[in-house]
């Protein structure tokens, strides 16, 4: 929920910034200050994106034989199926951190687990660049083509409960003339049980 609101906010900011860019040159200087993360960098090349995707997915190996990102992270992208759930979903990390932030994190991760996992297997600068390019691409794609599921809160639960109650009532109505118990039940009830 929070994530999503944040994402919408980011989106709005990006859109505002873009429209500002297009609307007037005067806004150009103000826009970077208005947005918390830096403005989007120049579009990456398809070759970079492809390399980043393969590196993320594990199709291409890191030069220092580090584990592929997919082992722990998931990203919403058409080409990535079922990334790991050990760590965060990195779909929107580009919006959050920007190119510089991501490059810094990938170069020297501030997270203990990631530090341990990549100790002695640092990523090469071109690999980092490719990964950032891919994440940027994935982020943009998720904002344009991916729709987040609608959060209905308690409404779904309420509808389910009402449906169950309705169905139970319906079946009770249908079954009201059913043979409710064995014809011998009265006899069985009187019998002495051993346990």
């Amino acid at each position, binding site marked *: 929920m929070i994530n999503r609101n944040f994402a919408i906010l980011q989106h709005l900011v990006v859109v505002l910034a873009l429209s500002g860019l297009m609307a007037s040159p005067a806004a150009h200087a103000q826009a970077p200050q208005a947005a918390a993360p830096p403005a989007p960098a120049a579009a990456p090349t398809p070759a970079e994106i492809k390399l980043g995707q393969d590196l993320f997915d594990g199709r291409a190996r890191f030069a220092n034989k580090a584990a592929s990102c997919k082992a722990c992270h998931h990203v919403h992208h058409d080409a990535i199926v079922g990334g790991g759930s050990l760590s965060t979903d990195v779909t929107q990390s580009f919006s959050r951190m920007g190119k510089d932030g991501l490059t810094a994190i990938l170069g020297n991760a501030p997270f203990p687990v990631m530090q341990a996992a990549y100790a002695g297997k640092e990523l090469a600068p071109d690999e980092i660049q490719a990964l950032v390019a891919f994440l940027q691409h994935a982020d943009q794609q998720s904002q344009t083509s991916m729709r987040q599921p609608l959060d209905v809160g308690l409404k779904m639960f309420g509808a389910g409960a009402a449906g169950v109650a309705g169905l139970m009532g319906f079946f009770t109505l249908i*079954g009201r*003339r*059913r*043979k409710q118990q*064995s*014809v*011998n039940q009265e*006899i*069985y009830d009187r*019998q002495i049980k051993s346990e």
Partner: protein
Amino acid sequence: MDIRSQVSMVFHLDKCLGCHTCSVACKNIWTDRKGAEYMWWNNVETKPGTGYPTKWEDQGIYKGGWEKVGGAISLKGAGKQKGLLNIFHNPNMPVIDDYYEPYTYQYLDLIESPAGDDQPTARPVSLITGKPIDIKMGPNWDDDLGGSPDFARNDPNLKDLSPAEQEAMFQLERMAFFYLPRICNHCLNPACVASCPSGAIYKRGEDGVVLINQNVCRAWRMCVTACPYKKTFYNWHAGKSEKCILCYPRIESGQAPACMHSCVGRIRYLGVVLYDADRIHETASVAEQDLIDHHMSMLMDPFDPAVIAAAKANGIADSTLHAAQSSPVYKFVKEWGLALPLHAEFRTLPMLFYVPPLLPVMAAVKEVSHREQEGKLSSVAKTWDDSWLYDTSTEELWGAIDQARFPLKYLANMLSAGDEARIKDPLKKLMAIRIYRRWKTVGDISQQKALDALGDAGYTPEMADAIYYLTSLAKFDDRFVIPAAHREHAIEMLEYTGDNRGNAGFGFKAGTMQRGM
């Protein structure tokens, strides 16, 4: 006229001694299998009693058989619309507790238990779950009026009897009962066949045996509720329904069905009856009081040339016609009018007929004084302190039937759709035969009286001798007149055999293309 042949049965209730040999023979051959332990395709019930499954005759509970709505008949609890509505959960289904939970005992514990301070016991275990159980009910717990307050007094056939009449039936001195052996009736208008959503049940063309095709059965169990006699059962292990097959593998090879073959009292008769299939629907739809008469008139005279011609036109073999002419069933049912169908009001036109029991009817219980007798005894002698006398005298010819300790209404509810006059007729006839034989063998009745009795019942002495013979002296081949099966003809009802006819040597049932050649 659409003449067909049916292997039909007569059970002579006066001769049934309630030994359950038939049930055991049937169980050993057919239902001693997993999933079938609780089934008794043949069972023997004590009447009055609630039977197996409990209260099977009460269609208010199980909704079996047909009912007349307006001018037409429809299934009481099944059929197209009702069946579709209830197809996933049949509301009138008997549960295992309505039959009984089958059990065995852990007999090996008796001999394999380690030495200990206590005597080992054989605990009862359920044949369904395999776990130890408290036995709640057995297949014949109401046998011989056991548990009368629960079973005999709840007999659905008592419904039209006044409380005073019911009370009189259960006075210790007046108590009487008889046995009712039951198998599938192989009805002419079977409710099970009509109810099956899969079309798995069929009445065999050649001999009218009603069978469930185990390859087609889809376990909807509509037949279990639709059969008013509760003679189709669900095999919970196989997932298919099963029923009495009239031992057709035995019949086809000329043997009597196992229950009949093993019958100790020789109460069972089996033979071919020709019937007019055109009139089934009309007969099943008549008013309740006309049901039996119409049913009887559907059974055709096998000596009538028109019937024979129509039968031959339908492909009924000469040997089958010959068997129909010497059928003991035809004699009991049509010639002598002694046998009636069970619960004709279910409208399934059952083809198993019952000769009603005379024995509980024959004797009257009279109140007499023992004073004169007691006067002759010394003061320390034990005397009877009741004043009832079980009277089997034949002083009055027909008085005993009316004053019977067994109310006629009860028998009528079972065997003549509630019509007391209809049930009195065969009882009178049975009584006449008895009086006639008593004149012949004991001689304490005058010839005039014996012949009068026969005349009243509409019998000639020759008929009486024939009835006596078939009742008391009949040999195996008299009781079971089984026609040749003619499988070679019967198979033509299902498949075309013309390709192979006239060919020499071994043929193939399928053509070369079908055989992949």
